[in-house]
């Protein structure tokens, strides 16, 4: 469904994108303007339901007169701005950022990462075999979801979703500093001892697969995960009367994970533990019982 929230009318500002004059509503970001103009700017930490932290820096563009490049996901359009999205300077930064990320973390489950690495000519291997990596073992401490921080690019989206932007549970935060910074619970405790309420909204927003359903994690480990064989069905959660939308991802007639449409004006993709993880009863067929 497409929701059209009513807003006060917004003025349009004039700017140029790669030399072409465009108009964009005030308060929109450069990324909005780029996308409206059909330009593909790569993004990792930007998410449609959260305020971007602009931490990954793959979406940088050149703004005329600025000393440094600007993150398209966060910089607001201004009247008369001259923006170039595909200059050598911007492409260089994107390339190096992709190299830095791919040389330190596992981007194998990050959608589009491989395409961008190819498009920008990034060579993550050139830092040598001894280049420091995040090197984290997957944290499997509960039956619902797995934290594989070797895939984490520290986009802060899970922290924001768990914190004041959506869930207000505040079970996780960034701990440590610099290259040693990690997403962590209090005192680095197992999830089961933390404040986590297993809403799974952090999985919903994770852009790299560092957070995943235990089902998905196990199936990937067994080589059985096959997205092309999956169907997606959006339905209404049966647990309570709120009416949250669920998208059931089904492979071989089994629900393998549950997401939620981000354009739902009530939930914006957020669910609770029941909607997200409580799907076993649906497939509790006679033939599945021992």
């Amino acid at each position, binding site marked *: 469904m497409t929701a059209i929230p009513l807003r006060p009318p917004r003025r349009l500002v004039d700017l140029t994108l790669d030399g072409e004059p465009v108009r964009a509503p005030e308060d929109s970001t450069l990324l909005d303007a780029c996308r409206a103009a059909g330009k593909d700017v790569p993004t990792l930490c930007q998410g449609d339901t959260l305020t971007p932290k602009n*931490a990954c820096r793959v979406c*940088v563009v050149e703004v005329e007169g600025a000393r440094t490049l600007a993150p398209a996901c966060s910089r607001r359009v201004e009247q008369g701005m001259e923006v170039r999205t595909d200059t050598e300077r911007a492409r*260089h930064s994107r390339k*190096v950022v992709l190299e*830095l990320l791919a040389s330190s973390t596992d981007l194998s489950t990050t959608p589009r990462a491989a395409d961008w690495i190819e498009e920008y000519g990034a060579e993550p291997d050139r830092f040598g075999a001894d280049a420091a990596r995040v090197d984290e073992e997957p944290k499997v401490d509960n039956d619902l979801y797995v934290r594989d921080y070797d895939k984490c690019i520290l986009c802060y989206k899970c922290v924001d979703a768990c914190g004041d932007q959506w869930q207000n549970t*505040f079970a996780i935060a960034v701990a440590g500093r*610099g*290259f040693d910074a990690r997403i962590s619970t209090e*005192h680095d405790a197992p999830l089961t001892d*933390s404040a986590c309420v297993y809403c799974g909204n952090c999985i919903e927003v994770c852009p790299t697969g560092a957070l995943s359903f235990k089902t998905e994690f196990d199936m990937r480990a067994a080589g059985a995960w096959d997205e092309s064989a999956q169907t997606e069905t959006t339905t209404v959660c049966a647990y309570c009367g709120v009416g949250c939308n669920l998208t059931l991802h089904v492979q071989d007639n089994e629900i393998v994970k549950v997401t939620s449409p981000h354009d739902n004006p009530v939930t914006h993709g957020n669910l609770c533990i029941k909607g997200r993880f409580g799907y076993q009863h649906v497939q509790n067929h006679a033939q599945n019982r021992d």
Partner: protein
Amino acid sequence: MDLRFGAGKPTDEERAAVDALLGPPESAWEGADDRNDTDLRWARGGREARERRELLLPGLHALNDRVGWISEGGLDYLCRRLTVPPAEGYGVATFYAMFAVKPRPATVVHVCTDLACAARGSARVCAELERDLGPAGSAGSGAVWQPSPCLGLCERAPAALAIRAGETPQAAVVAPATAEAVADAASAPHDAPAEPPAAAAVPQTGATVPQGGATVPQTGADGPCPPPATRAGTDDAVVPAPGPDAGQRPENPAQREPRADPCAPPESSARRDTSVPPAGGNLVLLRRVGVVDPGSLDDYRTHGGYAALRRAFALGPAGVIREVTEAGLVGRGGAAFPTGRKWSATAQQPDHPHYLVCNADESEPGTFKDRVLMEGDPYALIEAMTIAGYATGAHRGYLYLRGEYPRALRRLRTAIDRARARGFLGEDVMGQGFAFDIEIRRGAGAYICGEETAIFNSIEGRRGEPRSKPPFPVEKGLFGKPTAVNNVETLVNVLPILIEGAQAYARTGTGTSTGTKLFCVSGTVARPGVYELPFGATLGELLELAGPPETLRAVLLGGAAGGFVRPDELDVPLTFEGTRAAGTTLGSGVVLVLDDSVDLPRILLRIAEFFRDESCGQCVPCRVGTVRQEEALHRIKDLTGAAAAGDIALLREVGQAMRDASICGLGQTAWNAVESAIDRLGAFK
């Protein structure tokens, strides 16, 4: 907010430390042990409780000062008291280098291994400590030592700082450091010899200690030799907690500072001669250092103190901003932004309240000028902050002081208390109907917190990560309100501007760099210290004052984020425009002198290591880029020419992306010094 606290309980000590800061808990909702009837009737919390979040950093200090580290139970109790999610409290505690979340001994010795100290033999001190106390980080004999980034004691390099936790925490500065003196300070910080007076760091006063004569008039001096008990023991307490001896404390601890202390031990090396001619009337910012008693408000007023604030009241806020603008004052923290424009932009914001933040988180390796100013003339900073608050419409000023400056903390606290008691701070400053007060916030070991927006997050009790700009601080700064952030040196410049007038002030210096500038000269010079020169003097003239080495290899200007200058470039004028034209920067005023005995690749490696350690980790170019740069410099530290060419190309590519795409100045400048060493000094050639 849906907070869950673990089962961890604070120890009695931890509870007492937190309660000493926050007062006893009123209800079980905020950590009281017993639930009473009223607790059952309503839940406490909400906005009022959440707004106490800014007390998180002081709370973490309280725990760390008392026990030496922060336990789960202690942190959970603090978080419960402040309605802070424990995960966030843990994230903040693990951000700062001076805190530990794993058990460690009460005494921690920080041994500076940064540039100036490295050039002065810190490696030898570390090797000896390793032999005597065991490897860094291991808890031997009740103390643990660890290498540290710059402690801001470069004029007395190599330096160490021993901090002992307890009911009355103690800190002892050992500089110049020997392994023996460090071990002594670690075992008995209260018996450590007192530091030389701040004026000893200013060769131009001619007051090099201990040889120089008594330069500070003493008010109420209590005898020629302070008794041992009045030395570092009670005096250097990190937090002067009211202990049993509080009543017996002399009224003015600073007065007991041995100035030309005949009882002070002689300096360990006689490398300093005292031949800098006193600058006489030429010192402006430093003119009171070594002259005024830093503990006495009356002495400060006798030496011209509070005349500038009186003039400010006569001019009105707009008049003050006009003077500062016309004087051409630009920020001395490194960015050189016009102060008048910053103040006027803050003053004009319709949103209220406005805040003033004094950035005293001087952590750039090789920088110690702000420390000398704060230790030698603390009331000057307080007066200048009051003027800045008046001009920008702020009624509250935060003085964000780096955690490694125990003496500056002690003196500023004393000075603020006295100024408040005498009506120079508070509800009605000097009877002019202007309310202004200052709160000191101690940093806890994070270079990034000197970044103008990271400082806000740190004060607010969040991780000291920089914010994206825009919005700029003048629009949305501390607590989301319009804020003026100024460096210590910048603020102190306001006093001569108001006293002499903008025109007279602007006659010193050059057209676009007006006034005088403080330079922190360290490394292999005869007389390291803080020098004050009018803008326009050349680097060579400055080095002549400090006594350059016979075989000069290079000068690092502007610190780790600055650039190297060759011996044949000493005629570069020390102005913002002059250094820019020469392809370098004044930065925060660092002048680190290296002779030809220096191992340049190791110095570059240390710079890379510094940035890798100090990156906050928020953005990818800086978090990973600093690591990749350090790795490349490791690979080529013994290579030259073609063997190094590949990695130098790699360094350049990563450096360019860091400069272009990092969120803040740390990542944007982290590659500057190494790049200039490669391009201008021919490192690895």
